[in-house]
């Protein structure tokens, strides 16, 4: 680490496999990354690239069976989340690690009031009594910008709009001042004007609270606006990783390069024809022995089918898993 700060979260070699009747699905293959205090790590990838499964494996949110975390270490401070057991993990979830899910419609419990759901982690993890928890819940709702917070504690989730529900989810995730906040596509189900509100809110909260955030999305635009570092995933692996400006300005992996070209830009002149990435994402039936992107890659050569490229450093904090060198246009 260049700046010497200890990471809050250090993930090494994480490997998650789903066992199904049709065989194994290798959803996450040797994923390593770290998260430093106060930074925002953006994780981009298509559906099936393993981005959500990676983050859910970290804190044991996947049902097992069928999911099985086969290998790896997840260090949060000095404890390994994969080894500490269910009881201790329950204490970590919500207290040290907050989670915001994609769909604000289904991730709140419809039969409890919003107030109850915010107070639950406060009473459980922080040992607050009812009155204290209530006071803190009002503060939290005010923090995330819900007007008339005191009265809205008594409301049920269906009485809130989508954007407001996502704010409630963020309030719950923030309740115990977590060290790490994992946001899984938090704005995907929302409209652009509401998405802009939530992004503004998260920027603001980061300044105020200084927690580390992992933001999962498929929208490169969102990442460009808020992330410090970005990790591009493809086929259950990290394809490219680096500081956000560097990755967008000098993308090294053919997938990142193609992805950046295929998205039309609103503020640039219209292209005659959209660039496409031909083909389909890979099936992850077995442990990868070759590059998962090779079938859709315009630079693929024989080595790509023989060996799975490891991540190699190409700049300060910028690494790529590819046998092709984007600077020379030749194999490395």
């Amino acid at each position, binding site marked *: 680490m260049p700046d010497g700060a200890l990471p809050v979260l250090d993930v090494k070699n994480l490997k998650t496999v789903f066992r199904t009747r049709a065989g194994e699905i290798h959803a996450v293959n040797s994923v390593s990354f770290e998260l430093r205090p106060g930074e925002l790590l953006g994780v981009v990838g*298509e*559906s099936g690239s393993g981005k959500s499964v990676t983050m859910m494996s970290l804190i044991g949110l996947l049902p097992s069976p069928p999911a099985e975390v086969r290998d790896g270490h997840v260090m949060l401070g000095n404890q390994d989340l994969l080894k500490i057991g269910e009881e201790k993990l329950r204490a970590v979830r919500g207290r040290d690690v907050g989670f915001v899910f994609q769909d604000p419609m289904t991730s709140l419990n419809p039969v409890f009031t919003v107030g109850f759901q915010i107070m639950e982690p406060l009473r459980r993890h922080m040992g607050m009594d009812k009155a204290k928890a209530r006071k803190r819940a009002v503060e939290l709702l005010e923090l995330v910008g819900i007007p008339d917070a005191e009265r809205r504690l008594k409301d049920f989730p269906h009485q809130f*709009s989508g*954007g*407001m529900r996502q704010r409630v989810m963020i309030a719950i995730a923030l309740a115990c001042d977590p060290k790490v906040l994992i946001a899984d596509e938090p704005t995907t189900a929302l*409209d*652009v*004007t*509401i*998405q*802009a*509100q939530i*992004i*503004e809110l998260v920027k603001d909260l980061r300044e105020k609270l200084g927690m580390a955030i992992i933001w999962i999305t*498929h*929208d*490169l*635009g*969102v*990442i*460009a*606006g808020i992330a410090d570092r970005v990790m591009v995933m493809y086929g259950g692996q990290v394809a490219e990783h680096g500081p*956000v*400006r560097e990755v*967008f*300005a000098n993308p090294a992996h053919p997938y990142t390069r*193609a*992805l*950046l070209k*295929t*998205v*039309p*830009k*609103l*503020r640039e002149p*219209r*292209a005659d*024809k*959209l*660039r*496409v*990435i*031909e083909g*389909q*994402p890979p099936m992850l039936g077995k442990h990868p022995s070759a590059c998962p992107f090779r079938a859709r890659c315009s630079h693929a050569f024989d080595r790509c089918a023989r060996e799975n490229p490891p991540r190699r450093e190409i700049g300060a904090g910028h690494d790529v898993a590819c046998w092709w060198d984007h600077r020379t246009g030749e194999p490395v």
Partner: protein
Amino acid sequence: MSEPRKKLLEVRDLKMHFPIAGGLLRRQVGAVKAVDGVSFDIYEGETLGIVGESGCGKSTCGRAVLRLYDITEGSIKIDGTEIGTMGQSALRRMRPKMQMVFQDPQACLNPRMTVAGIIAEPLEEHGTLKGKARLERVLELMDAVGLNRNFANRYPHAFSGGQRQRIGIARALALNPRFIVCDEPIAALDVSIQAQVVNLLEKLQDEFGLTYMFISHDLSMVKHIADRVAVMYLGRIIELAERDELYERPLHPYTEALMSAVPEPDPSIEAKVERIILRGDVPSPANPPKGCNFSTRCPKVMDICRKLDPVYREVRPGHYVACHLHDAGIMNNQTNAGSTGAVPRHEHKQQGEDA
């Protein structure tokens, strides 16, 4: 756009209200005004993009235009024929001309039918093709949308999202329609697949001379595919213009806010974008605000906006907008009144603080 083009579709004052039943006797107590008086034309061979947030009535508008609903009021002319009040059996004879591509490729294909069966169904219902000729046509359509002929006997579950959307497009094309409503055809697809489907739609448009109504919430994609774009808010079209005109010189404050909210996949541009963050949510279409529909969230709201509904009018050639700010008569009155002239500017500053 030099020579006068032929209008394929003319929609005038279209209204689609859904009744709300309430009380013990389930009487009608109100109405959701999903589409509340929209008028537009679509010229032959062009793509009209319809953008707006969820709940603004864009999908309802698309379905109403094809008469998938019995509309509340208004007139719809397709190729000169009035279909707004047409009965179902007469409408059925019109169906081959106008087709639809749906949003969810998972839900719009019958899981118990093979791909060939799905694409052949409109031919069975409306066509005269039989036996071998029909199968030949199905295979031809599969070629046109880029599906492998060998997959004709497979079932939808064996295909990915992008391929399923191709099946839906092939089915819509089966009867050689002239007009297709595409209702969020790419919303359920991955980024890398979206471009494939959009390119396919453009290719087919050139090949078969199709006219599209392209409904989407993705402003960047609409900028790519549409010739003209209409922006909807709460059941109304609030602005409509040629694509470049609209994206370069949006007139309505809502269009401005909508465009500024789109994140740009480039950190160096993203850092410079001035965001207009709208406060609050879209009001309920069952109980729209008094005056202008957008007055509750508008950063440039004036007193008159809360009282008087702005008229949808042509302010520049081909550029329509419904906003008092672009109504010369009203703006003159405002400045003449002296002190009130300062009101909009003051409010704007207050709301633009986070830009």
